[in-house]
């Protein structure tokens, strides 16, 4: 198997030479030419906290990494810190200011720059061109991949606009962003101040952000890809090679089948900031072995199809029937445990924090920390079953500290939704005190893993 390839102990010298050519970084350093130095560094440092805007920026449980972006084929690079690590999206998207004077290669479709619109659940959005770059994280490198530059050289609003209700029948934003959101206009997240980071590194369990659904304009509401010749936008089909892509899946090393994220345990009152690691590759070398972690296969939508708790079943019926709940999933891009709902959990002392309190929008708890035990996450096709325990603390108390990292902040998934609508989103709090693997669908899974739609392991 290929994953033995990077073992220094086992690889013969000629292979190490090949690896060096492929891996580019970390090879043949100026101070040593020994074979043992040719192993590329697959470990990136993570920081969790409030991010570049500080606590007043309104971010808690942000997870950040440093990313180096280079003009393709050159040593003209910019290293950008505070890029948010997001296992709930796909693709690298950057606030262009972080690039400084480094320019990238535009992707033109019919002679016009390819633009993408992405929207977030709070009605905010990002919009800007995709350009080609070499991307390096730790010592791992992806060559000539599309990277989105938020807000660069585009009008402030994606389709629809005032003069153009739809673009060739398609439109990205259906709903007006909430007027109090940051950004110009409100909801447009193309600055560090509005995005809360220098960019987003989407490394979820898929390779492309849209894939075959966007090689032709196969849908219109919420369609992401456009060209805008002479200021008039039209939706365009885009071959996957030009779509926003999971940089990990494009690494030229064999460490391209997923990530391993390790974060330390913290006290229930939280922490100002914590440091952790992200190892690239799963079971491709000794430092990313699965060890005792159990594997959980995911459904076609990247979710656990079934979660059971307290005699109720929460199913991903949205994936199968376009209605109801989402089952369960792990997501570093969720800042809380969005689990069940306060009405369903009221016997645990859980309620919705009142309007006007610091925790409004999150769970409050009476009588100390609430513990939800025997939450069962069941993998796709029955591959893996996890019995987990979650702590929920009072968000108003937590947010009244100077801390920005919490392992016990929660929120409704769907208010009053009940098991038919609710889901179990194991956001950032779940990752603290654990090692979690996220395996990318369509890449070389570790031996014995039966997970066609990707997997998680912990």
């Amino acid at each position: 198997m290929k994953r033995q390839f990077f073992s220094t102990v086992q690889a013969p010298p000629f292979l190490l030479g090949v690896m060096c050519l492929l891996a580019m970084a970390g090879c043949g350093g100026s101070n040593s030419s020994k074979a043992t130095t040719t192993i590329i560094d697959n470990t990136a440092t993570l920081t969790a906290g409030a991010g570049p805007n500080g606590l007043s920026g309104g971010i808690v449980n942000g997870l950040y990494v440093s990313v180096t972006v280079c003009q393709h084929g050159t040593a003209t690079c910019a290293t950008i810190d505070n890029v948010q690590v997001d296992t709930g999206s796909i693709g690298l998207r950057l606030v262009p200011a972080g690039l400084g004077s480094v320019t990238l290669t535009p992707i033109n479709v019919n002679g016009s720059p390819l633009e993408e619109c992405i929207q977030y659940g709070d009605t905010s959005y990002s919009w800007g061109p995709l350009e080609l770059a070499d991307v390096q994280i730790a010592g791992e490198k992806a060559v000539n991949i599309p990277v989105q530059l938020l807000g660069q050289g585009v009008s402030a609003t994606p389709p629809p606009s005032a003069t153009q209700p739809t673009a060739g029948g398609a439109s990205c934003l259906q709903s007006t962003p909430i007027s109090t959101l940051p950004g110009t206009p409100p909801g447009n997240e193309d600055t560090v101040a509005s995005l809360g980071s220098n960019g987003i590194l989407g490394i979820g369990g898929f390779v492309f952000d849209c894939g075959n659904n966007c090689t032709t304009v196969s849908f219109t509401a919420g369609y992401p890809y456009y060209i805008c010749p002479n200021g008039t936008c039209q939706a365009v089909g885009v071959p996957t090679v030009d779509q926003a892509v999971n940089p990990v899946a494009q690494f030229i090393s064999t460490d391209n089948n997923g990530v391993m994220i390790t974060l330390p345990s913290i006290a229930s009152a939280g922490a100002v900031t914590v440091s952790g690691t992200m190892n690239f590759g799963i079971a491709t070398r000794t430092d990313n072995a699965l060890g005792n972690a159990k594997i959980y296969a995911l459904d076609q939508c990247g979710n656990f199809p079934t979660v059971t708790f307290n005699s109720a079943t929460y199913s991903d019926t949205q994936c199968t029937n376009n209605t109801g709940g989402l089952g369960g999933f792990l997501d570093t891009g969720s800042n809380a445990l969005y689990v069940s709902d306060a009405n369903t959990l009221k016997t645990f002392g859980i309620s919705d924090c009142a309007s006007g309190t610091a925790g409004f929008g999150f769970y409050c708890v009476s009588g100390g920390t609430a513990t939800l035990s025997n939450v069962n996450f069941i993998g796709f096709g029955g591959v893996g079953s996890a019995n987990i325990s979650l702590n929920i603390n009072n968000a108003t108390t937590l947010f009244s500290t100077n801390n920005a990292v919490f392992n016990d902040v929660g929120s409704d998934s769907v208010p009053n939704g009940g098991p038919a609508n609710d889901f179990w989103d194991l956001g950032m709090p779940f990752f603290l005190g654990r090692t979690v693997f996220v395996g990318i669908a369509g890449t070389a899974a570790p031996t014995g893993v039966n997970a066609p739609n990707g997997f998680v392991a912990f």
Partner: protein
Amino acid sequence: MSYTKAILSALLVLALGSMPASAGLGQPEASVTSDQLHMKSEHRVQDFQAYRVHELANTEGAVVREYVSPEGTVFGVTWQGRSTPDMNQVLGNYVNNFQTATRDQTQIRQRRGITIKTSDFVYSNFCRMGVCSGRAYAPKILPGNVSAEVMR
């Protein structure tokens, strides 16, 4: 707010908010037709004992369901698709409740989605991996014998 920002906001509101706020939550059952035209969708009606569901589904997998009371009023809406639908359209006059509640909720950002629970308006929307889902209902016009869980 800068002049440019104000203009851009106004233009966006013009573009997105130009549909009459006569359809959706809290409106008569007849308003469903307006939503159907807006979504360019197919229309399926399901009758249950205590309520009726109008399902508007277009060919791209976007679905909006409107829940109608025996008195003929839309008391709840749900949606699934690749974008959050036009809130002016699906929330009707309750879009004001939406705007007011979210204004109070900006201390900690929840980019993945937002939830609102007040005595007369309950809302949630969540987007991840390019897929959004959500629902909204008006508790005060929810028929007495109908559980909020049926809106899914």
